[in-house]
């Protein structure tokens, strides 16, 4: 624990030996490309494949009508909605899959795609979610019998009556309308698969870019069982994954079509999407319209919050959330503050945009919630004229008040918010910066300081409440130690760059005393790894990491028995120290873990089961609640409106830290994915449903130039219920950074009467404000 071990997985990645889906090349493999809709909403009048089939190398064109024969033209979403695999009649969003071209190579498949002629009858799409709810809006999901509107679901948390009462009697009420824009995870590797069906053995191997291979196998079995593909005949392999961030949780139509084609022709079929297809059709994130309100006293006591959300899910609710949580964990939005009353509600609607939403490096809608509470807290501070750091310090839940029961029902496990913010303020030099800001304002210069002190909620989750399609959200570890004391450990999760091969090895090493170098970690192959729900929502360390610790402790119990047998003492006479058992009072009498393991195969006590392996399925008793205190300092060019981040200090608290180097790397990356939607990224649609920035030419992923040099540190408040006191961390910075940046920019402009700006806060938005306020003539 606490050792910045260099990563075990690096060797293959730095030498070009990573093994990603598109690197897979099988004999006789066919290639698939997908014809996509140019319209956001249209009837399909005809699909003419004649010319496409004449293209050399093209073998087949698959349409919805072909899949319909096998009842494979529709599939369920994770949220138990329904989604077309390929359409038979109507397209519902631009870039929707319309037909698949199968060919002998990549170029022939693309030629075939260009030659497919689809005749459409365009219809007027609904793009604005508010218009989708208007009584005269046409019903989009006419495939659902009896559906009379575009409303999907209504959700509530907290106490409406009590909250309304507090608001009605409060001295101070602030309110802002916020839009958390539709964005895209844009992992540098896009999505794809190789479906390899072996007709002779009736066996499917599915290599795919998935963050949750076990769940995918079960879903394939449930969907395709009627054609004879049962679960023992399906092997899902998730090889090296080039970034996931939630975008590789859903099942996309391309995967299903590739399986169907491989099943029918008995040959491997590869499908790898382009970047543009990835941005335009794969699941989006966010797209929440939030009305946020806070009530409090003139002196600065926060009393209540009230959030109202309109969630635009596009064509279908293809969110990647636990089943019982349609808004994910949005109800964490009461934040880090001590008040007892809150109410939140959300309504979801269908529009003619691609379906979603997924996480974008965030634990189930926590980013939206944190943005709302951290922005409205700053708005409240501005209203009563109190320093936003001071307001937070006065309202934080105190360290000794944990476990804290939140107004929406969560039990925060632990935290020390005062220590985190104090540290961030000391590092950045907060008081001096406020003085500098005051002086600069006198001179007409624009400088802002923004704070975000967030509480995350990660590690889904306890089986009482958490499942996906009915499967409980435990996770697993299996540790097998070989006779010579070297181990293989397998997990139900799947790294997409998080460094599991190193972190998990360190947990096993810590608990079992075998050097981490001697622990081989494997994930992602459903034939060999124990069942688990996968890696997303910062759940790997809280669930599978915990499973590793518990499995290792089971082995340590067995080791104690063997050591007692070898040393001819009772188990109670033995003491564990890392790597060996010694006899109490006689430390020279000891057996190392390697000697004990060897004995498990060569000299185990009679009556004891031979071998040395253990498995654990860990069902967490609670989620973990990491936190952070972030401070951003921004200078704004008053001629151009360009904001520049001068400094960004991030103090995270993720409990006990297994590998500080990896945790810091996760924080750096997460901060940049927080910067991205705060200042650059948004998927923009026109009123006809055309995406205006569906390529990397115009969807602005930050480069090294836009990204500041992040300053990171930590406080350590262990989780009381996690076996090693750890919490998740990979997503905290993505959650915490956007409001810190937005608060800094608004702070720089607040003396002009600015109270809120929607992200992404671009130079043109600021320039227009400066122009309107008369700063720019």
């Amino acid at each position, binding site marked *: 624990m606490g050792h910045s071990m260099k990563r075990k997985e*690096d060797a293959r990645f730095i030498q*070009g030996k*990573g093994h990603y889906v598109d690197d897979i090349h099988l004999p006789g493999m066919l290639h698939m490309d997908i014809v996509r809709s140019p319209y956001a909403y249209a009837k399909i009048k005809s699909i003419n494949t004649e010319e496409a089939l004449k293209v050399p190398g093209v073998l087949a064109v698959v349409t919805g009508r072909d899949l319909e024969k096998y009842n494979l033209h529709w599939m369920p979403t994770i949220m138990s909605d329904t989604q077309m695999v390929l359409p038979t009649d109507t397209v519902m969003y631009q870039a929707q899959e319309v037909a698949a071209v199968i060919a002998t190579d990549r170029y022939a498949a693309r030629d075939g795609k260009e030659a497919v002629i689809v005749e459409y009858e365009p219809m007027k799409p609904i793009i604005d979610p508010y218009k989708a709810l208007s009584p005269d809006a046409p019903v989009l999901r006419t495939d659902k019998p009896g559906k009379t509107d575009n409303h999907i679901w209504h959700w509530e948390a907290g106490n409406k009556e009590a909250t309304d009462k507090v608001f009605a009697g409060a001295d101070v009420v602030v309110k802002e309308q916020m839009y958390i824009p539709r964005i895209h995870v844009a992992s540098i590797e896009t999505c794809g698969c190789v479906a390899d069906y072996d007709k002779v053995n009736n066996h499917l191997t599915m290599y795919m870019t998935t963050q949750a291979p076990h769940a995918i196998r079960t879903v394939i079995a449930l969907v395709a069982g009627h054609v004879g593909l049962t679960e023992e005949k399906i092997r899902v392999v998730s090889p090296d994954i080039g*970034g996931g961030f939630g975008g590789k949780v859903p099942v996309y139509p391309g995967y299903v079509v590739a399986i169907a084609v491989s099943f029918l022709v008995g040959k491997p079929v590869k499908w790898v999407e382009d970047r543009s297809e990835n941005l335009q059709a794969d699941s989006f994130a966010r797209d929440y319209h939030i009305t946020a309100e806070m009530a409090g006293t003139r002196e600065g006591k926060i009393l209540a919050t009230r959030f109202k959300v309109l969630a635009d899910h596009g064509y279908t609710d293809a969110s990647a959330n636990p089943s019982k949580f349609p808004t994910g964990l949005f109800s964490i939005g009461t934040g880090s503050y001590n008040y007892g009353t809150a109410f939140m509600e959300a309504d979801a609607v269908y529009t003619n945009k691609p379906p979603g939403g997924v996480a974008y490096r965030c634990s189930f809608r926590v980013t939206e919630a944190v943005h709302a509470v951290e922005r409205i807290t700053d708005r409240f501070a501005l209203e009563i004229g109190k320093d936003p750091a001071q307001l937070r310090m006065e309202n934080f839940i105190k360290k000794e008040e944990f476990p804290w029961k939140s107004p929406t029902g969560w039990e925060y496990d632990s935290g020390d918010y005062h220590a985190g913010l104090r540290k961030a303020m000391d590092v950045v030099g907060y008081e001096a910066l406020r003085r500098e800001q005051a002086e600069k304002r006198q001179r007409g210069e624009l400088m802002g300081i923004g704070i975000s002190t967030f509480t995350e909620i990660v590690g889904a989750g306890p089986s009482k409440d958490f499942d996906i399609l009915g499967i409980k959200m435990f996770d697993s570890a299996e540790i097998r130690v070989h006779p010579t004391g070297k181990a293989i450990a397998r997990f139900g999760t799947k790294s997409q760059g998080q460094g599991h091969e190193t972190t998990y090895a360190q947990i096993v090493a810590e608990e079992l005393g075998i050097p981490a170098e001697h622990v081989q970690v494997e994930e992602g192959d459903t034939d060999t790894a124990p069942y688990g729900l996968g890696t997303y929502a910062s759940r790997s360390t809280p669930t599978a990491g915990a499973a590793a610790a518990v499995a290792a402790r089971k082995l340590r119990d067995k080791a104690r028995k063997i050591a007692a047998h070898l040393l001819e003492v009772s188990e109670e006479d033995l003491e564990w120290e890392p790597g060996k058992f010694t006899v109490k009072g006689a430390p020279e009498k000891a057996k190392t873990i390697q000697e004990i393991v060897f004995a498990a195969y060569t000299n185990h006590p009679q009556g004891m089961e031979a071998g040395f392996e253990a498995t654990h399925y860990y069902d967490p008793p609670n989620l973990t609640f990491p936190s952070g205190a972030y401070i951003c300092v921004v200078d704004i060019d008053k001629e151009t409106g360009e904001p520049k981040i001068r400094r960004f200090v991030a103090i995270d608290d993720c409990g006990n830290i297994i590998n500080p180097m990896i945790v810091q790397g996760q924080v750096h990356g997460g901060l940049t994915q927080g910067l991205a939607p705060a200042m650059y990224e948004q998927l923009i649609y026109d009123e006809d449903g055309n995406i205006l920035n569906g390529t990397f030419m115009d969807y602005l992923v930050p480069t090294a130039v836009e990204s500041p040099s*992040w300053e990171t*540190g930590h406080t350590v408040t262990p989780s009381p219920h996690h076996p090693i006191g750890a919490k998740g961390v990979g997503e905290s910075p993505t959650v915490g950074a956007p409001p810190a940046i937005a608060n800094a920019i608004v702070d720089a402009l607040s003396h002009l009467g600015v109270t809120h700006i929607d992200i992404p806060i671009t130079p043109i938005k600021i320039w227009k404000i400066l122009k309107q306020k008369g700063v720019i003539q």
Partner: protein
Amino acid sequence: MKKEITVTINGETRTATVEPRMLLAHFIREQLRLTGTHIGCDTSNCGACTILVNGKSIKSCTMLAIQADGKEIITVEGLATVDGLHPIQEGFHLNHGLHCGYCTPGMMLRAVELLAGNPNPSEEEIRWGISGNLCRCTGYNNIVKAIQYAGAKMRGEELPSTEPQFV
């Protein structure tokens, strides 16, 4: 229609027949089966497919295979030698300059050319120097450190600490 080309790739001469329209990135990956060169976009923005052609860093999706005829190519598979890892590979490993590894080969090859032209770049020069290569995982801090480390190693100077620094 197809054309025969000969390239020297990672020191080895390879002759192949290609369609004139075949992208160099696809030629390297699918015909020469060197899959360390990755493809991350279709508009030449991400830089995952960056290789060295006659010593210059090139996004291999912007070049046709036939344009590489007679040229000398280095891909990630050609960075290490019998003496061990290239300093840039060592730098990325020791400084945690990679997470998922997908952008890493292109990022390293871009850095190799950057350091060849500017052996001791400032942080700002490094950031601008790699601004044609996108990384979604690392936030770039440690990529900058990795390149600084490789620069020091190639200059034969004292190596900077590879321990993570916390505030």
